[in-house]
């Protein structure tokens, strides 16, 4: 996994590189917008970590430039700007996520992984959280390496939750992914499906937990350790 970090503070950059290195990412570093453009032109990166205020320009201009060229590389903005409109402006410019300084390495690593897991991202045929693994091409689910039998709809549901593990997935979004447009969806069809999947995973000895967030949706949480 190759990441490009654009950050003008050398000490912070070296700390981030060290931290992500320990989490299994290879991080290249440059200090300026022009340096970043140069690096992006000669190397394929899986993810861009971008500080906003750079010595020779605005980080967001780099984001806009990439998006204008139809580049779908995931971009995570790291910034000291936590203003009311900054996050919206950043996401509107085409960034995929926005992390305000100060942050901790586990949080940064988790966000990076979440971005790399997204559909369209270069990685992610095998999704996992805790001891649960799902192979998205084979449509197979394993707990601690042992295959678990599940209906296609349950596998779809698990994939939805695994792709956003640690985050709440809106009920509407799950329904949209699980049921075709014209299918009649009864109000508690999804609820029943979640409940069956929970039972199946629990029986197989899975250590992840599928939580209902009333009024919002569902979330799959891996054992606490991964979420500082």
């Amino acid at each position, binding site marked *: 996994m190759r990441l490009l970090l654009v950050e003008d503070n050398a000490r912070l950059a070296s700390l981030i590189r060290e931290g992500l290195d320990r989490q299994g990412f290879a991080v290249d570093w440059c200090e300026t917008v022009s340096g970043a453009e140069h690096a992006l032109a000669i190397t394929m990166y899986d993810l861009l970590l971008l500080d906003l205020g750079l010595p020779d320009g605005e980080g967001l201009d780099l984001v806009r430039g990439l998006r204008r060229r139809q580049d779908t590389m995931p971009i995570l903005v790291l910034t000291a700007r*936590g203003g009311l409109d900054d996050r919206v402006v950043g996401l509107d410019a085409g960034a995929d996520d926005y992390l305000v300084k100060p942050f901790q390495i586990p949080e940064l690593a988790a966000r990076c992984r979440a971005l790399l897991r997204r559909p369209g991202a270069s990685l992610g045929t095998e999704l996992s959280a805790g001891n649960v693994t799902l192979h998205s091409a084979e449509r197979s689910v394993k707990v601690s390496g042992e295959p678990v039998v599940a209906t296609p709809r349950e596998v779809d549901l698990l994939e939805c939750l695994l792709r956003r593990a640690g985050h709440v997935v809106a009920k509407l979004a799950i329904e949209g992914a699980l049921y075709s447009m014209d299918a009649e969806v009864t109000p508690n069809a999804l609820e029943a499906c979640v409940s069956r999947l929970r039972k199946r995973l629990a029986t197989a000895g899975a250590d992840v937990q599928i939580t209902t967030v009333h009024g919002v949706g569902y979330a799959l949480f891996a054992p606490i350790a991964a*979420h500082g």
Partner: protein
Amino acid sequence: MDKAGNSKRGPAGPTLFRQIATRLAAFTLLFALLDVGIVVFTYSSQPESLAQELLTLEANKAERSTAPVPDLLAGPPGAEHWAARYVEPAAGGSAPPPSRVDAPSGVLMDWTRRERIPGGYRISGVRSVQQGGQQRWLYMQFEGDGIRPYVPVIANEIVQHVVLPLIPLSLLLLLFNVFAVRRVLGPLQRAEAEVDALDPDNVLLRLSEAPEPREVNTLVRAVNRALTRLDKTMAILRGFTANAAHELRTPLSIMQLSLDKLPPGPLRDDLQADTQHMARLVGQMLDLAQADALAVEPDVLVDLADIGRDIVGAMAPKAFAAQRELRFEAVGDTRALGHAEAIYRIYRNLIDNALAHAPGATPIEVTAGPGPQLSVRDHGPGIADEDLPHIFERFWRKDRRKSDGAGLGLGIVQRLAEAHGGAITARNAPGGGALFEVTFAPPEPGR
């Protein structure tokens, strides 16, 4: 809107109109007294002209009276001896002839004589009077002493020369003043209303400048200049907090990440907790500076339910890690006018507050609607009565040693609600637990 109107309209001092009226009256009185002094002084140095006026006054009285015999007239006050009768100009007229008949025969003329006698003075003279369309001549003589007989003369002089000209003049001046003051105060009253309407949130507002009168115009312009300076100071202040917080974030990141490299132990844990507390404080100071500067566009429609779902989704992992349950519910129409990111932070701070104050294993209920309002309710111990007045104060914490927050979260919520023209209330919910409710401006009907 409600914070204005409590201290204004106090009867602090007389109105400008009353001041002008009082001063004008005092000035008129002073002027009259001066005038009286001049009259009295002039006549007291000229006893002859006083005597002359006295006889003329008596003759006027006789002219107006219907008494057939002028002797019956009262005469001037204090007269010791008074005599009056008609005389005929024709020769051989009834005697006694006036002592001075130097006039051409057949014609009498007005004359006056004043002579000193023992114990006073004697005044005698003739005046022509019109009675029944006929000219007659009145001979008068009296003796008196001191100033007393002259009092009616002097009073008459005062009426003629002081009161009659001064009263209309004063009235005219007063009328003119009423008009002038009204004219001057009109723009001042407008300026007063505008100053009352000045809102610290709307820093760009200025008083409208009326071209005249120039004095009011210069005052209004001076106030506007002061407002501009105030704006600049406020901007610097807000900018300072925002910049300070912003600049602190990078070194804080470095500190936090460097601490991770220390060998594990109680010292590292303490330092990590401290930097986390500081990071939180810096974040809140920046939030507060931005909340203070927030101007809400009056026509942006947001859905409180959408924002609520977003934030509850975003905070559920944190709640889960703390083994707490977050619930969200939307009731009815939840549209409101507002700033989505600001409302997001209102929810976030209220949920943070509930996570910090209610014990584990109790649910936190987040609700949007019905109507343009949201609420966050926990099932903790609720808010003590003595704490209620303080919970929105900046930097207030119930227990400084125990709390890891800065005491800014609820202050930020209040400020953000106010920036929306909304309000926040805190109370204990029936059945226990704290309930925070925020109301916003409703969307205009028909949208």
